[in-house]
């Protein structure tokens, strides 16, 4: 009973919040509703009894969206609405419609399949975190390691990209001044 009430509550709230994310022209509203929606999704994990995944969802997305915020802070004035540059309405409609269709098909497909069974049911007597660990380090070890290597590659690339000229001062760098001057001239 409580589960059903909670499920519908969380569903309605999540869909509503993500709608705001998509439809709002204010970057602050969009980001905030995105963060709140991600936090509410963890509620579904809690309803399903997957406490560990729920908390992981919470921690990961709180951090990830915090990083997105910092980008928003750099590029937009958070208190104003953003004028979107929309050159081709048909293209937007087609691409949006197609991706929505693909998503619906992807998630609706299992309904028509009879072969869906839980491959790795919960092991009796161990906690949530241990259960995730068991599957992750036996069946899914290779994808796990590949993901780790990918993250390492991304991290090294990030350090190399950001690390250029790190020992030089930005304010004393004349080339930076030149770039600023060029932009001014254009205006």
């Amino acid at each position, binding site marked *: 009973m409580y589960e059903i009430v909670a499920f519908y509550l969380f569903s309605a709230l999540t869909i509503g919040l993500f709608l705001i994310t998509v439809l709002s022209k*204010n970057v*602050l*509203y969009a980001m*905030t509703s995105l*963060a709140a929606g991600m*936090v509410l999704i963890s509620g579904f994990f809690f309803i399903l009894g997957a*406490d*560990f995944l729920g*908390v*992981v969802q*919470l*921690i990961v997305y*709180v*951090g990830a969206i*915090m*990083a997105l*915020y*910092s980008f*928003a*802070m750099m590029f937009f004035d*958070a*208190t104003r609405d953003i004028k979107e540059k929309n050159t081709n309405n048909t293209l937007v409609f087609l691409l949006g419609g197609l991706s929505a269709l693909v998503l619906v098909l992807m998630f609706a497909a299992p309904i028509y399949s009879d072969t869906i069974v839980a491959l790795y049911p919960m092991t009796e007597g161990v*906690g*949530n*975190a241990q259960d995730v660990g068991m599957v992750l380090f036996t069946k899914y070890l290779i994808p796990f390691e590949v993901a780790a290597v990918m993250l390492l590659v991304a991290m090294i690339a990030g350090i190399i990209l950001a690390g250029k000229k790190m020992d030089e001062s930005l304010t004393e760098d004349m080339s930076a001044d030149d770039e600023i001057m060029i932009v001014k001239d254009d205006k």
Partner: protein
Amino acid sequence: MGETVVDLLPEVTWVGVLIKAVLILAIISALAGFGTFIERKVLAFMQRRLGPMHVGPYGLLQIAADGIKLFTKEDIIPQNANKFIFKIAPVITAATAFIALSAVPVFPDFTIPEFIPVLGGVFVPSIASDLNIGILFVLGMMAAGLYGPLLAGMSQANKWGIIGAARTAVQFLSYEVVTGLSILAPIMLVGSLSFVDFNNYQHDEGVWMMFYQPVAFVLFLIAGFAETNRTPFDLLEHEAEVVSGYATEYSGMRWGMFFIGEYANMITISVIASIVFMGGYNPETMLFGFSIGWLLIMLKIAFFFFLMLWVRASWPHIRPDQLMWLCWKVLMPLALINILITALVVMV
């Protein structure tokens, strides 16, 4: 329906949870107010001053005066601010701080003594909700609390606020890794994420975790200071640099909520440190035939609270780039090495 209120109380009946939630709210809010007084007094004594002395005996009623001031101050919302976000930002800070407290045990489970009317003889588990992933939940909730300063800074159309918000993001991304990694080593030893298991583990071993994991203890404390914006890392609202940072445009109770949240977080960090690293509550610690586990953990929590004030009086605060340098280049490698060694020891 022959049940009385008393029958509903034990374990996780909704009445029990409700009572505990109200108790947490009331007690921690009051303690947060009292904390400001203690902070001013302790800082004053460390700087050879007297601190607040005029209102009431020994300045004790200063809390009431401050409370009246906070509640009656005009509530100002800047004209160009994003009003909705501006209004909910303080609530996020305060609410997440209290939600985090719902999963930490402060006392051992106890039975209300028989001589108390109505409630006598009821068994009370002290924790409001004993999640089996308690530590992660508390840390995640405290992390979510930083959305308060972030949104506050971004919504108020004030340059100091934006700087405060940017510093919030920087601080969050820096310390979060250290908090997680430092507490991972004790988790590996205990093999559980539940606070109660931590308490019992130290009870069984007879040794505080801080002697097994001194590095993790120090790292966690440092990250905890960053998490609660305490002084060596109070970049978000350092008056001398960014006026008041994210709180520049706030007044009255909205400003007050940020501070209730901050002090509640200080208490939470103190509780986590006491339970995970300093033995927590041990119901079988006896003194003159009385169980004094509850008293000891109060003393431990008070000590950590005092430590935060002590550090504030002793050290100047550091620059944002120094914080990043410290977290990423010093503390994170140390935490990783600590985990590696712990893993080897656990494995062998």
